[in-house]
């Protein structure tokens, strides 16, 4: 029931026009429409938490996306048993800021979850995200094999796959990846992060990774994508291992267009978006715009 509502909502958001009628909560007396806000906001600054909150603010504030009583899932990348400064997992402060914003906006529940690669508990602890979420009223839960279900995901390549139900059953999904190097997709950001919301033989998805990323992005339809690029992983991805594999960029980008967010992420690595096949595919599929010049994009430094 709820996922349908959300998917419908997102489709309209992406298409653009009718979005305001469904989703955004317009405050009384407020005349500004969704069209007035940027699709993509990037903020540079010293505090991961502050730049995250500022980026969401520029998109119109969390209240624009979250309704009272919503069950919200926040999906960071917690794939690896690595500390935050290794830039293998999403910055814990960014995740914490989002949990706070979501709850402040009136959400009933804020659930943080990821299907990790190393032992789940290790990843949750060493990434610092478990501790960060504990400081809020949010909840961090493990992926449970009983809660993974094979279902039709209507992809162009990926027809059926095992999906983590706890992600799917949310009213709103916030994707909060970290920008990292990856040997096959070249970069792993928001679209690749959906491999952490599925189960099954994930390693076989690599045989057609770009298509899998696009199909999964189309399926999960995040309400917002928040790209943590406070510290990015420039080599030996996707887990790095040395400080010298990382680079401080001190930026967080947030957007309603998942393709534009990843395209912006690519620019941080000096990669033209047009060189990334998954972005081209996603553009063709109408999931968003990778040509940043065509995106309503605001940038700020605080």
């Amino acid at each position, binding site marked *: 029931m709820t996922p349908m509502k959300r998917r419908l909502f997102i489709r309209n958001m992406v298409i653009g026009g009718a979005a305001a009628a469904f989703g955004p909560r317009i405050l009384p007396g407020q005349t500004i429409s969704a069209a007035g806000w940027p699709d993509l906001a990037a903020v540079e600054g010293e505090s991961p938490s502050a730049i995250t909150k500022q980026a969401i603010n520029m998109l119109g504030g969390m209240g624009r996306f979250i309704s009272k009583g919503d069950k919200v899932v926040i999906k960071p990348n917690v794939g690896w048993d690595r500390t935050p400064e290794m830039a293998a997992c999403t910055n814990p402060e960014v995740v914490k800021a989002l949990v706070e914003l979501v709850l402040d906006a009136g959400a009933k529940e804020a659930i943080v979850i990821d299907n990790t690669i190393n032992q789940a508990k290790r990843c949750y*602890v060493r990434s610092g995200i478990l501790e960060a979420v504990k400081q809020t009223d949010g909840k961090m839960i493990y992926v449970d094999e009983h809660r993974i279900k094979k279902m039709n995901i209507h992809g162009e390549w990926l027809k059926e796959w095992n999906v983590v139900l706890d992600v799917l059953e949310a009213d709103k999904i916030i994707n909060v990846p970290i920008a990292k190097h990856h040997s096959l997709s070249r970069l792993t950001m928001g679209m690749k992060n959906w491999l952490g919301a599925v189960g099954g033989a994930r390693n076989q998805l690599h045989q057609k990774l770009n298509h899998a990323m696009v199909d999964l992005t189309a399926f999960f339809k995040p309400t917002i994508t928040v790209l943590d690029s406070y510290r990015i992983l420039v080599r030996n991805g996707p887990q790095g291992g040395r400080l010298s594999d990382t680079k401080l960029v001190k930026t967080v980008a947030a957007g309603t267009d998942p393709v534009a967010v990843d395209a912006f992420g690519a620019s941080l690595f000096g990669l033209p978006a047009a060189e990334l096949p998954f972005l081209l595919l996603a553009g063709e599929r109408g999931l968003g715009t990778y040509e940043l010049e065509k995106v309503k994009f605001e940038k700020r430094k605080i």
Partner: protein
Amino acid sequence: MKREKSKKYRSVQILRGFSQLAFFLLFVYLFLAAHYTGEDYISSTAQRFFHFDPLLALVTIVSARALTAFFLFSLITVVMTLLLGRVFCGWVCPLGAVHQFFSFVFKKTKFLKPPREEKSSLAWKYFILIIVLVGAVFSLNLAGYLDPFSFLTRSFAVAIFPGLAYVLSGVAGLFYSAGLLSLGRSTSHLLENWTLNATFIQGFAVGLVFLAAVMLNAKKERFWCRYLCPAGALLGLLSRWNLLKFRINQATCINCNLCSQHCPTQASPFPIGQWRSGECIYCFNCAAICPTAAITFPMSIRPEKAGNVSNVNLGRRRLVLSGLVAVASVPLFRLTPFKKRASLKLIRPPGALEEPEFLATCVKCGQCMRACPTNALQPALTEAGPEGIWTPVLVPRIGYCEYYCSLCGQVCPTGAIQKLTLEEKAQVKLGTAWIDKNRCIPYTLGKPCIVCEEHCPVSPKAIQLVDTDTKLPDGTIVTQKAPVIDVEACIGCGICENKCPVVDEPAIRVTSIGESRSAQNQLLLQTGGDPFRP
């Protein structure tokens, strides 16, 4: 004559029940605590329990030819036994508690009730002890197979708790299907948080042995403690001088023989003068059941007559024979080709001693297997030769060695796996990964994969990707990134093999060659000097 049972000894009996329960719960708690709690270094001392065991101490020190300080704790048990007899067996031993519990339950049933008569020879456990001790002289460490702590920990780690986890997981599934989401979730989280989701190739065998040991209580009350336990035998030998003596007041004794009938270890309190101090575990059943309260345990420094120590007819010939059996079996245990040539599947946990020392030190308790977060450590069957049965071996297809984990060494009770800091552990090489190009997806099918490369935890990665041409069946050539191993950078953690999408026989496999602990099992020539000089 006034007939009244002793109230005092009834209370002592109850007290003993609490003591057994307390030590059993402590044991279970420490057993469960041996896992990744969220800290890299575990503060609980699961291994400490073992250090109080004089059998493990004696055998390991003799077998490994090394005096290890942590076994000083076993002196406490030795002194306690010298002073008070086998109270350890009756009041402390958690396996003893398990056997006592099942004996109690079986006695309540009709069909499992152990017969009181036809008492077998108590000598077996002494023969087992002799075999274990003689083995130790030849560095053959057999203590762990029947030592109570090793036996119980291994059974719990490899069979009982995995079985329990299987049931709990099913319960979680039931909760979910009944729509009880949060109950299902907390059950599953319990398994994850306590690292209980593990399965072991030999869980079945170890579990059956445990079940058999429990079922033997239907044959005879505390069968294990009476006939099998080498640790109990050792403590029995030490209890000759103990101060806690057994007395029957001849004036009040009515010769009913109830005390001997209820003795769980055949210590023979009746007839008078037949009591075997080496068999008595101070359960005080006799004193509590005596209808005239004729039985007491006075303190006395007068040593028992030598014959009363165990009052077990060992027989010189049988003693010599069991010693000879032990000596003869040593070469049988050593019949393995792995002495000359390393076993490719024998990947030992990080920090493991060199193989001969490892075999002499490991007591097969399975504590490392309990602590391993990925279920990678498995009890060996054939990988390490007959001497190495149930020693830990890393099986990458089941689990891999977590890069930032050194728990196995932290919980090892004997130092067979050395304690390593995370920094030291990252330097240890367990083996080397090899690519099977005939099975590897990019090499053979010309399709993209790179899964092994992305999982490789070392930086720079020990698996590098190189553009490789593959000829497809139709003759066309495709170019794909294919993995190539940097043999020197590889630490043999096995995550590549574990995650390889070619699941049945992975296209990348770790073998033991190159392991840091071995000087022989090396791939690259280590000259270290001028080869033309001696």
